[in-house]
């Protein structure tokens, strides 16, 4: 296994552990503390129009799909 591949797998593993600890924590943030989370800068893909275009470009000119701005393949004759 190449060092780059090992590093990538380690990163995904660490992020997975973070995800697991997230679920187990079940921290409740009070409603009045969430004002900041409603701001554009704190919302994932807050601009759906820009996300749609960038996602489609990446999806049609790269071999990978899913996750960032894109649900999956389809809608064009590309690979």
């Amino acid at each position, binding site marked *: 296994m190449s060092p*780059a591949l090992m590093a*990538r*797998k380690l*990163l*995904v593993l660490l*992020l*997975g552990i*973070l*995800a697991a600890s*997230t*679920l187990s*924590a*079940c*921290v*409740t*943030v*009070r*409603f009045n*503390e*969430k004002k*900041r*989370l*409603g*701001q*554009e*800068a*704190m*919302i*994932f893909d*807050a*601009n*759906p*129009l*820009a996300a*749609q*275009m*960038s996602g489609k*470009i*990446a999806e*049609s*000119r*790269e*071999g*990978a*799909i*899913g*996750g*960032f701005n894109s*649900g*999956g*393949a*389809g*809608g*064009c*004759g*590309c*690979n």
Partner: protein
Amino acid sequence: MQLRQSLAFALATLITLSAAGTGYAKDGKKSWLDGMKVGVQLGYFNQVDNGSIPQLDENGSVFQAMLMLDTPLTKEDHITIRAILDVISSASIVRDHNQSWRALQSEATGDVHFDGQVGYRHDDNVWGVGTHVGGSGDFAYQSGAFGADGWVSFFEKDTTLAYSLEGYYASLQMIRFDGHYDPAQTRTTLTQALTLTQVLTPLTVFYLALNYTHQDGFLAGMFNSVFIDGVEAVENLPSTRERGSATVRVKQGIGEDQALELGAREYFDDWGLLAFTAMSTYSLYLFEHMLLIDLGYRYHHQAGLDYYQKSFTADPNRVFQTSDADLAPLDGHQGTLRLTFSNELFSKETSETGGVTVEGDYYTRSNGLDMMWLLLGYRGEF
């Protein structure tokens, strides 16, 4: 046929919307436009291909117009509409080895690509469901699409789980690299996504997405070709493909005016393509939140497909072959600068989201492709 049916459905929905609008006066609303969310965007895309495939350069530019509407029928029920129109303003598919052939190809100058979608959503306080149908196409590709999704929140909305299903059934006109037509083929695509969004602290949000896509039918490029000992032949790829990815993203607010997002994706499929993508976005509010600046960087690395080679030598045992540069081993770097001007600059609207957006992106790929796109958009609410 699917496209015509989708357009007819969209028209019927618009008529229904108009009819439903007449009821708003009884509910104290001024018109059916009240509460409608609108998004419009104009885009310009340009690509320069210098050497991805030695015998072929794909240079081109595209103008795009996009419209998104979300109209409330009631407080919980919404009709959503999305329409996208791409016009290829200039394109040159240069085949130096075959300059005499100028058959019409997809994405040639003057081609138009349309994508339309209409849907219904019911969003309650802690759960929601939605469905949509759509169609897209150009002269060489037509598809019908359907989708459904649902979400549910727990722990005072700190945790949100969502599931979506998206399907496409496409018809492909088989215009091959040398201009001859083969019988039309079909392609089916089914994508499922499971996402978790978790609020960790008043300034931290975590996101996990698991995607799985199944495709079958004709999965090669209609126009794509390979060179075998210097002789051009059609691309050939398997008729099924299973694709999966896992994505994690974290947003961290910094003080009142800044935020940082980090994300990573691992992708794999049964054609042997492995990919890793990482992204980061730094966000900064200026002028009392009247202006939001997003500065992003995205890195993409992929190992090439099992069936990819830049050129081939004759081998009677080989079944699958592609020289598609998009499926080659490559590294991609993308930079993004986005300015979003708050709607408060133009009206009394006090929403924390939306506004006028100006964006520029540049993407460069290690195997010769350079792309840039510019966007001008508006999002607001009546």
